[in-house]
């Protein structure tokens, strides 16, 4: 479903833009349909940049990205807008990824109003929103609340509902639980796993926590200094890259 060939992203910096930071430096991999690919690495290794590149939220320096056979690196702005509903992103901080002046219900209804998946009547939209709210484990009374009235975990559920409203095929989840508590993190991660099965999603799951990536992914790619240094079966990667695992006395 996703095919990446020799992707590069250099950020120029310094006087006269002489120096450049090689955030993503010649990365190639593929993700099969229905697969969850984990992307793990220390902070600053370029994993977030790679995630953004895949959705063309930022422009690559060079290289190709294919999505379902289409080379999205070649698309113009209008074409990319048409393909965006098929690929979505879950950001790190749920509180800042929702419009603070929009009620939860309005936020989730927005993709339907824009007619991304055909036209809906107001009534249908309302029913769909309530259905999604229930799918992600929120209560109907949350519809009329604002993001600041909900907790981080609840807001991340809203973000998920909104993404499901768009009905994408591919989702990049960039540390979706970085700002959440341990028990809430467990709830959200399990929800993502359930939704993935239910909606047959393909996922790129970015995290610096090897333990979580192992739990979520089929295959894992390890990133270091902008390059993928290892890629393969989640269990094997977990065993080979113990340096990326936080010392966990609780494992014993």
């Amino acid at each position: 479903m996703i095919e990446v060939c020799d992707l590069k992203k250099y950020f120029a910096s310094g006087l006269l833009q002489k120096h450049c930071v090689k955030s993503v430096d010649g990365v190639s991999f593929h993700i099969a349909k229905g697969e969850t690919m984990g992307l793990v690495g220390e902070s600053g290794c370029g994993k977030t940049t790679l995630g953004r590149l895949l959705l063309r939220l930022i422009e690559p320096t060079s290289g190709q990205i294919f999505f379902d056979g289409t080379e999205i690196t070649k698309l113009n702005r209008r074409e990319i807008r048409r393909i965006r509903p098929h690929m979505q992103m879950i950001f790190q901080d749920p509180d800042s990824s929702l419009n603070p002046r929009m009620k939860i219900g309005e936020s989730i209804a927005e993709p339907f109003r824009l007619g991304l998946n055909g036209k809906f009547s107001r009534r249908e939209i309302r029913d769909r929103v309530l259905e999604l709210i229930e799918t992600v484990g929120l209560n109907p009374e949350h519809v009329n609340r604002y993001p600041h009235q909900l907790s981080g975990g609840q807001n991340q559920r809203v973000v998920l509902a909104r993404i499901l409203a768009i009905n994408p095929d591919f989702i990049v989840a960039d540390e979706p639980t970085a700002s959440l508590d341990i028990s809430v993190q467990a709830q959200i991660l399990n929800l993502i796993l359930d939704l993935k099965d239910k909606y047959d999603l393909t996922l790129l799951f970015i995290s610096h926590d090897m333990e979580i990536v192992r739990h979520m992914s089929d295959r894992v790619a390890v990133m270091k200094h902008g390059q993928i240094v290892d890629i393969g079966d989640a269990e094997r990667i977990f065993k080979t890259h113990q340096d990326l695992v936080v010392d966990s006395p609780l494992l014993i």
Partner: protein
Amino acid sequence: MNLLNIHELNTYFPTTDGLVKAVDHVDLQIADSEKVGLIGETGCGKTVLGMSIVRLLDSSAQINGRIIYKGRDILGLAEEDMRSLRGREIAMILQNPTMSLNPVMKVGDQISEVIRLHQGLDKRAAKKRAVEILESVSIADAHRRANQYPHEFSGGMRERAMIAICLSCDPTLIIADEPTKGLDAKTKTQIIQLLKDVTKDRSMLMITHDLNVAASICDRVAVMYAGEILEMGKVWDVLKKPMHPYTRGFINSLPCRGLKPIRGSSPSLIDLPSGCRFCPRCDCATEACKIKHPEMTPADDGHSVRCFLYT
């Protein structure tokens, strides 16, 4: 004798929606050179408890109870006396170094400011001392780094700078509020090691929701939920043989324990359940749990728990 003795501490905040009981009847002791972990989720009151000890809360906060430090009740001290105690005797490592450090002040100056205030050293001597302290928290090239601003530091180095400020006046008790939050695995391990080294002869209250961090530093842990302490004991007793259903659920929601979450969410601190506060989310709850509020009950070897399963 205990260095710090917290007895029946209540910290309430009056709001238009009602009284927020952020800390409710908390008893906690910290002995000389002892490291105590305070574990709990966001909004359970653990930061407020830490802030109550150093008296850094908003004036609207209603604090009741006793906080005895070296035989003196902190809550009874005049603000002036408190100011000479805070930073010198009891120092706090605040949460989120990016927000806590002054962005328009050089890191070295932020450290020497504390030294000049508390130890009356002149500018030059304080600056020299600041560089030494930066070296002691393993910041390479400390001379140059002292003249840099916080934005020129990485996340891990900012955390080190926070620790340096806290250590600048050689405090007896350190209150560390989530010092490893937002750091990646490698940096986290380094910061844990650093904290271990610098607290060898000091006492520490370590506020965290990271059980691994607590396990690697603390002697004892207290588990906090909805403003009160539910379980307390030696760190390995609590983590290996957790008694309270909440502690068990918390441990099982770790990624290395299979990510099994506790159902539901924490109660609002304004409208607390009348019986056991964990009752609505508890799988072991009985009728009694809905009505009666359990008290802390000692089990064996310093382990105590607030649950009817053990009475």
